[in-house]
């Protein structure tokens, strides 16, 4: 102050209010997180019941699994944070890939016939190849001709002559399409061989891309062949591990190959992160050794409710026999349907709004209303599904298609909003570069904007899918059955889902056992699947941000 003549130092300015405010904000940040975590710990404790195991069991795994893993992590950390990160990422990768392969195996064991799958793939691959050939044969084929040829070959391949158009006009089917032809072949190779033939090549391609060095053709071929052989072996040797050949192939290709390829690629190409692979190695070896040791000595494990029986059985009136299998499969089917229905529409809308739409009153109204749609309660979407599909279009209630369409409508605004954000994140300079080269808008969107924003779009849509599989109210509204005893094998069959099954156990069958054991077990499975999906989204987002 000007009046303060004896100047000693600068004095102090009080920060009490600011400090208080800061910690209040911290409390607000952690509030929800802490409570949900506590709840989940209780639920997981009920579901897995770790304390029912022998102390010897815990001790064994402490010695074989926990301590070696900690030691490996500490060693990797001393060699570099990157190494430890790679190691932890690999563990997560193994877990997520295992869960995915389980879901995929479920689809091929119970839902889709391998022959149908092969026929469908062929019916798509052949016209794709024909189209590519036509386009590359002469660049100057006019767009209209290209379009007509493309539509025609796809139609012929999928539906045959004259197909549904003909049956509308009353013409009998003259020749089946490629799909009908292959699906109707009297002789077909063994199902697991067909799956190996369809899953092997993509796995081999990914493997050779990731493991072999860039310009070494020989290494590419060798690695690819090795991966392919591994997939075939997975099917051939599956019976020795007590698994059928069909799930054997799927689990090998989807669950084992990706983490192994990742680990091999890291070991081969990234010397600094190689050490980190000790961590997943410690986990895998530790669990196997621990399991063998516990078995040999005879220590009893925890009486977990999340066990093989729970994952593979259908609902039963006694809690001990109740399983989650149809609900898990139903959720997976719903998710696939939602993805197929909502992604193209949502991404299309986002591209239109970001790249094409003029800035006028009409588009601004659309803008605001899409944000509003994202906030409409899910039960209203259920009502929409019921009214539109069941009452008006006279569809049977509670089917896969109906559920998928309703949930797809529900997440459509979220997909649009997140895809728009990803597209908006493409730098304006990149677009200007493309236009400056004489690209049309379509060429710019196709060659620059979409590739650049792809991972961002994917991240947002995966998170939206997570919202869809957790929804209960719309499924109740459209009349999905609470309890189903088998997986639906067609889009027109009724479907149940994980949250519905949990709801059924907690309300309709609310005996002590159901309430305290089956419900927590179901919740644990549901949350685990959600977390796995979200972790994929997070990994994608980090990768996307690091390449900016």
């Amino acid at each position, binding site marked *: 102050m000007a009046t303060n003549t004896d100047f000693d130092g600068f004095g102090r300015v009080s920060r009490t209010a600011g400090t208080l405010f800061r910690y209040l904000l911290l409390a607000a940040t952690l509030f929800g997180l802490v409570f949900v975590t506590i709840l989940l710990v209780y639920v997981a404790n009920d579901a897995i019941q770790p304390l029912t195991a022998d102390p010897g069991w815990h001790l064994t795994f402490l010695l074989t699994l926990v301590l070696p893993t900690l030691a490996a992590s500490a060693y990797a950390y001393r060699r570099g944070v990157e190494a430890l990160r790679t190691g932890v990422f690999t563990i997560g990768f193994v877990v997520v890939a295992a869960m995915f392969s389980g879901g995929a195996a479920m689809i091929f064991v119970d839902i889709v016939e391998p022959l149908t799958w092969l026929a469908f793939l062929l019916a798509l691959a052949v016209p794709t190849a024909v189209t590519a050939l036509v386009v590359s044969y002469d660049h100057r084929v006019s767009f209209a001709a290209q379009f007509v040829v493309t539509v025609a070959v796809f139609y012929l391949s999928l539906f045959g002559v004259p197909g549904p158009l003909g049956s509308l006009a009353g013409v009998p089917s003259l020749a089946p399409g490629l799909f009908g032809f292959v699906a109707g072949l009297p002789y077909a190779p063994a199902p697991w061989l067909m799956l190996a033939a369809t899953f092997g090549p993509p796995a081999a391609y990914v493997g050779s891309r990731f493991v072999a060095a860039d310009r070494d053709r020989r290494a590419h071929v060798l690695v690819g062949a090795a991966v392919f052989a591994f997939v075939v072996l997975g099917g051939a040797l599956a019976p020795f591990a007590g698994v059928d050949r069909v799930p054997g192939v799927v689990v090998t290709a989807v669950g084992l190959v990706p983490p192994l390829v990742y680990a091999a690629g890291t070991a081969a190409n990234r010397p600094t992160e190689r050490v980190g692979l000790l961590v997943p190695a410690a986990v895998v070896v530790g669990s196997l050794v621990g399991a063998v040791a516990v078995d040999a000595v005879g220590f009893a494990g925890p009486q977990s409710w999340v066990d093989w029986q729970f994952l593979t059985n259908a609902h039963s009136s006694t809690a001990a026999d109740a399983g989650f299998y149809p609900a898990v499969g139903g959720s997976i089917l719903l998710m696939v349907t939602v993805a197929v229905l909502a992604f193209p529409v949502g991404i299309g809308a986002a591209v239109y709004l970001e790249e094409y739409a003029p*800035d006028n009153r009409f588009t601004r109204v659309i803008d605001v209303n899409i944000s509003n749609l994202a906030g409409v309660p899910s039960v209203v979407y259920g009502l929409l599904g019921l009214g539109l599909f069941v009452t008006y279009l006279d569809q049977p209630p509670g089917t896969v298609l109906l559920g998928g369409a309703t949930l797809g409508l529900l997440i459509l605004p979220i997909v649009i909003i997140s895809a728009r954000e990803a597209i908006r994140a493409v730098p304006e300079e990149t677009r200007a*570069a493309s236009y400056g080269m004489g690209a049309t808008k379509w060429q710019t969107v196709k060659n620059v904007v979409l590739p650049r924003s792809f991972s961002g779009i994917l991240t947002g849509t995966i998170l939206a899918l997570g919202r869809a599989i957790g929804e209960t109210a719309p499924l109740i509204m459209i009349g999905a059955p609470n309890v189903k005893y088998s997986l639906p094998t067609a889009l027109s069959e009724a479907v149940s889902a994980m949250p519905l099954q949990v709801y059924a156990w907690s309300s309709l069958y609310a005996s002590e056992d159901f309430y305290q054991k089956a419900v927590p077990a179901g919740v644990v499975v549901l949350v685990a699947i959600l977390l796995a999906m979200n972790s994929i989204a997070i990994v994608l987002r980090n990768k996307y941000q690091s*390449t900016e």
Partner: protein
Amino acid sequence: MSDNTPETEEPARGETADPTNDDMLVETDVASATSGPTPGTTPDPIISSRDLDVFYGEERALDSIDIDIPENRVTAIIGPSGCGKSTFLRCINRMNDRIDVCRVDGELTLRGKNVYDPDVDPVALRRRVGMVFQEPNPFPKSIYDNVAYGLEIQDVEGDHDEIVEQSLKRAALWDEVSGRLDESGLALSGGQQQRLCIARAIAPDPEVLLMDEPASALDPVATSQVEDLIEELAEDYTVVIVTHNMQQAARISDKTAVFLTGGELVEFGDTDQIFENPEHDRVEDYITGKFG
């Protein structure tokens, strides 16, 4: 827009996929290279503007610009910030079309054809007028795909591998990247990225190369590499370069246009004359650093 331009022999560029387009480009270039202008004399203008006004909404960015830019020369446009020099550059390939509030009056001709005529397709125009931007902006694609981008989207005939190699050589980048064409263009250094962008711009063999302060984001070494490159490119291309670095303009350009605040073209002439003996006092003040 002015529609009363006399019709010229230049055919209107219609749809983008005109197969004869590329052949005509090649012929034009060969003709200009063989019978090209002799040094010292001012060749025929390739780009001319008459009474060109540009408005951003109500604000005037360019004030009746008259200019004749000669072929196969480096023409520098200098001036203080906000004088409309980039705006003028973006008029030439109609990149201003992308700004909603931007309005252009008057006439700007490329080889006698008013580019603002209603029958001119801006996309076809931009295929004849390459552009290099201030910030290096390679696509997040491989080095090869970056250079081949224009060839792909314009369906250029010929061996793309060969054209990519030639373009990278002309951009003085081949020696540095020949072994790693599969790597991302974003992995290069700033100066390399800018030369990559130049290679990308010249790969489809445009007639005019527009450069919007191409060296302003680069360090001195990279700047001098890009400057050398521009001088070499002027043997085959008409280069119009915007810069706020007057030494740069003096070093590399044959002609210099000085824009001053208000979007006016104050003086246009041979670079030597502009820098040694400008006619206008305002230009002299600007060049000697009294303002700007």
